């Protein structure tokens, strides 16, 4: 009898792991596993370098020395990015029961006042990331601006959340701590002082 209960319990945990959103104590350690696998595959965990690699692939190195050099050495990173897209498809299509984690009620209220819906019900706000966003000029401008800042900022800083916050901090690198402080300075500025006026 006890064995049956235990089996059912194990089955429930397994189904939750596949279908329900993960708590932080599953997500965080899994990111550490990704870091581990990359380090043991002779690589570093850093996703923003791919943007530079693609600029080099497109021939930007002919005029700008920053993009010169053999991009093929970074082919592995493009494979990781391609895998990431595949993983995103798999998780969003086959590993979901439609539920999302709870979002703090204050945040839900605040966002709905700003005209952003879906908090606590959907993975992403439809106003910004639904197909309808593609025909909304204001949203397109915001997404374009955001993308530009991400591309410019990560290369200037020499890394992003994976390269600096995870890899760099794990290696106790001072420049990474400075960069992460920068991420939060910029993020807090945008979240508290700019977003309320532009959303």
């Amino acid at each position, binding site marked *: 009898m006890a064995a049956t209960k235990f089996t059912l319990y194990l089955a429930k945990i397994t189904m939750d792991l596949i279908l329900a*959103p*993960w708590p*932080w104590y599953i997500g*965080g*350690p*899994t*990111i*550490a*596993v990704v870091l581990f696998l990359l*380090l*043991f*595959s*002779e690589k570093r965990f850093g996703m923003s370098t791919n*943007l530079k690699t693609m600029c080099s692939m497109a021939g930007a190195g002919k005029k700008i020395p*920053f*993009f010169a050099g053999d991009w093929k050495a970074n082919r592995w990173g493009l494979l990781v*990015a391609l*895998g*990431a897209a*595949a*993983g*995103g*498809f798999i*998780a*969003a*299509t086959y590993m979901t029961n439609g539920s*999302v*984690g709870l*979002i*703090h009620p204050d*945040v839900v209220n*605040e966002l709905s006042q700003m005209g952003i819906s879906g908090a606590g019900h959907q*993975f*992403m706000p439809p106003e910004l*990331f639904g197909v309808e966003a593609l025909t909304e000029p204001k949203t397109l401008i915001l*997404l*374009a601006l*955001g*993308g530009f*800042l*991400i*591309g*410019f*900022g*990560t*290369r200037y800083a020499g*890394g992003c*959340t994976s390269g600096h916050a995870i890899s760099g*901090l*794990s*290696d106790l690198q001072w*420049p990474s701590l400075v*960069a992460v402080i*920068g991420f939060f300075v*910029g*993020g*807090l500025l*945008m*979240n*508290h002082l700019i977003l309320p006026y532009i959303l």
Partner: protein
Amino acid sequence: MKRTILYFTIGILFGITMIKSEAASWFRIYEMFQFKSFHMYGIIGAAVVLGVVITQLIKRNKLRSFFGTEIQIAPKPKLIKASLYGGIIFGLGWALTGACPGPIYVLIGAGYLPLFVVFVFALLGTYCYGLLKPRLPH
């Protein structure tokens, strides 16, 4: 070929993790910058604590990779100004779009097509950095 499969598979694990942990969710990033939830801090904190253990074990024991070579971890360039200014610029974009460079690919794969706009302009931003690099303080 073996390596191709290896890197692609690591990418799949990363992509699944970004969706399942909701680290790629715009709402989670918004909530994080509002300090209204422990979720994102827990994810990043747990990853870094375990990452420090992994990295220190590798360095102190001179561990070898899956391919038998000694694992080399190059230090980050000591460019404090660039780290700070670049970091602030990226932070602005992160809080606006809710996406870091990794989740951009993950979310496109998950079917959130407007992220493609973010991706194209991230390429443009990277290109402009390369163009302006000699004139920027590092």
